[in-house]
């Protein structure tokens, strides 16, 4: 089992406010976290608010500064240490990794057409040479995400949450990345649509050979789609392992509390028990 992303002793801190003299107090969002994300896996990162899961996801994509620790990306043919990338390395890294966001409304620029939104990463990284090539690629990826080609000309405000999320996914996959961080990407969607998006992600994972880091607070969703799960609490990973194992036999008290808190659909049973 080779790791695509290897995190070692990562610490991420944020300064809280400003001070006239001396350093401001800091918040350690991620404390000395180590994690291995296997290539080709659907890796779940679970935690409540304040657990640091979003910060960890962003740190891996170098979207927040790292205070201490090492993150390595190794897809078999290309390897680099994320904290110390050169500009050229970073360009390549950006074409290989992407993120899907939680809020389908804030994640898409209201002033750009759907086609332009999906094409942006291609244009920025200069991966296509002509406009026709970009258009062809956009149509291809839009088709895979089941976006109606008619919709490419329209603006995001015309679409529902679920459709916008599909546009977000298409944008993330336009450059053909190998690693995608999905940050609570179904949390804002209705239940009937959630299932649809999750199925789409699983299918894309198989057809495009992707590795997902799936960040969520919703354990039942994670239980269904992820192969591995890491549970975070207050900046630390308290438990991790294959999904079925964690859900059948949680060892850490926080994991047990999390599982016990899921309300059961059976009125005569307090919480959902996993068999």
């Amino acid at each position, binding site marked *: 089992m080779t790791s695509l992303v290897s995190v070692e002793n990562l610490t991420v801190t944020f300064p809280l406010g400003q001070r006239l003299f001396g350093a401001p107090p800091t918040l350690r969002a991620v404390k000395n976290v180590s994690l291995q994300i296997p290539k080709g896996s659907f890796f779940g990162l679970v935690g409540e*608010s304040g657990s640091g899961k979003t910060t960890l996801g962003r740190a891996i994509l170098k979207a927040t500064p790292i205070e201490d620790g090492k993150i390595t990306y190794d897809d078999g043919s290309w390897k680099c240490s994320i904290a110390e990338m050169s500009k050229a390395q970073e360009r390549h890294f950006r074409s290989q990794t992407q993120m899907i966001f939680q809020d389908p409304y804030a994640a898409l620029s209201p002033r750009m057409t759907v086609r332009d939104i999906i094409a942006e990463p291609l244009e920025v990284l200069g991966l296509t040479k002509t406009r026709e090539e970009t258009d062809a690629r956009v149509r291809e990826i839009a088709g895979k995400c089941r976006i109606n080609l008619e919709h490419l000309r329209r603006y995001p405000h015309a679409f*529902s949450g679920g459709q916008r999320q599909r546009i977000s996914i298409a944008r993330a996959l336009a450059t053909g990345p190998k690693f995608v961080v999905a940050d609570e990407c179904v949390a804002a969607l209705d239940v009937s649509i959630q299932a649809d998006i999750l199925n789409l992600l699983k299918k894309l994972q198989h057809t495009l050979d992707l590795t997902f880091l799936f960040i969520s607070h919703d354990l039942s969703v994670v*239980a269904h789609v992820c192969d591995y799960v890491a549970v975070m609490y207050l900046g630390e990973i308290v438990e991790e392992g294959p999904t079925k194992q964690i859900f059948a036999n949680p060892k850490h008290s926080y994991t047990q509390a999390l599982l016990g808190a899921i309300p059961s659909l*059976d009125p005569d049973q307090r919480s959902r028990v996993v068999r």
Partner: protein
Amino acid sequence: MSLLSVDNLTIQFRTDEGLITAVENVSFDIQPGEVLGLAGESGSGKSVTAKAIMQLNGHNTVYDPASKIVLHGDPDIDVFSLRRERDMLPIRGGAISMIFQEPMASFAPAITVGKQMVEQLQVHTTMSKSQAKELSVEMLDRVGITDPGRRFDQYVFEYSGGMRQRAMIAMALTTKPRLLIADEPTTALDVTIQRQVIDLMKELIDDFGMSILFITHDLGVIAQTADQLAVMYLGRIMERGPVRNVLRNPAHAYTRGLLNALPNLEDLDAPLMPIPGDIPSPLERPSGCVFHPRNAELAPGSRYETEVPPMTEVGPSHFAAVFPEDVR
């Protein structure tokens, strides 16, 4: 004798794009001491329905003249007959209290929590300030806020998320309402805090004996708290009945679809089954049964495309919007 009866409630909104129907022919009853769960996704009209009971919808709201909301008691109050804002006063916060999804939005940020609670009591009761304070501190304690005396004098931003929700519940219950309307009270909370708030609400139901109209999209939360369940889709009630019956023997395709779309923790390998299609825009309401375009079980050209099915009895006190010949 029910506590609240809602009959043929139809609500439309005047917008730039025309008249949008948010709620259509919704009828239900809430018995004293009962918890009715109103479940639905976005666009189902559940929040609009709740706000209609408190007359909190905006000025562009059009209520159909056949709609009736009656709060039974001595005397019966027909909510739509109350012409003036101040006639609603004894109801809002008095006989009926409401709590919302975002507690931060319910408390004024620049006034201490205690002051707001006392103010509410002074509006609805003849208590003196010190009596009101005593009752408020007692309620804060009752909802599980530690050190309630100190918390009374704090501002809402000094409270954590779960505490704010508890404070909102405390404030809603000080006036001993007969009906509590809870609009997505646990949706914004972490799952462990949600568990605590659900347990708290169940205790309070036992203590206070009030009825609750519990609005949420989370069927698990409803299963744990409600006695009766009504499922709404696109402004209509699709199914209604005792919670065990509806969840265990769903009679309407939408209820079945919702339950199937939920991740099932019993079988982690089972695929997730979404409901096909998307929730239509409110400007494009389907004819007949509003759910028919997404109902995979229907054959094309069925009755449901053109006719609105009646609420048919499918079990004891259990109704669904299906034609009698389709009852399983």
